[in-house]
């Protein structure tokens, strides 16, 4: 079946630094969505992309528009409140079924 490979699995950042998460897809995907799961388990949608890039504050996401086989989430100037587990989920063409990556546990330290 469709697979989503997310990396890294865990990440520790100092406040003020930048980093990037990545999801590779084993097949061409129609769209990708990025989430942050908070400590209570709720999924907060960060970005939905069918192509190109989107930016929101210190977060920026990109979806490879050519082969549609990977997506990235960039975090700029990391803050303590960015800590949490980040998931990407991608939908292969036409089936409306989102497959989740394994998640990245991000910890931002002072």
């Amino acid at each position, binding site marked *: 079946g469709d697979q989503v490979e997310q990396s890294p699995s865990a990440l520790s950042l100092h406040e003020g630094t930048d980093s990037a998460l990545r999801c590779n897809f084993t097949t061409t995907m129609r769209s990708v969505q990025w989430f942050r799961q908070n400590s209570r*388990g709720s999924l907060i949608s960060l970005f939905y992309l069918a192509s190109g890039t989107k930016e929101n504050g210190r977060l920026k996401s990109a979806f490879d528009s050519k082969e549609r086989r990977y997506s990235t989430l960039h975090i700029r100037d990391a803050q303590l409140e960015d800590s949490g587990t980040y998931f990407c989920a991608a939908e292969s063409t036409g089936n*409306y079924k*989102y497959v989740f990556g394994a998640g990245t546990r991000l910890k931002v330290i002072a």
Partner: protein
Amino acid sequence: GALVYQYPRRTICKSGTSMRMECQAVGFQATSVAWYRQSPQKTFELIALSTVNSAIKYEQNFTQEKFPISHPNLSFSSMTVLNAYLEDRGLYLCGASRGNSDYTFGSGTRLLVI
């Protein structure tokens, strides 16, 4: 805006009993509803996808006999975990979509089995 409410937020059931959870879409028509389970320390596994005017499609390892789902209209869905056992514990998420669009997820129902 588009919101999805799930209830209960948290529930405990005895091993071998059943538990029903509900999902309500507000502000949009939920053409597709997907139910996921996040087992402890794991990612989200798709249980089934329900699309209006189509049969509910269950993923491998999940069956209608164990996780019957109802999607009677464009704003509501429910799922029951029948004969719950320890391995069924986790966070059950409902995601709803207009179709051909992004998913909005609820806060989940956390199931503990004792």
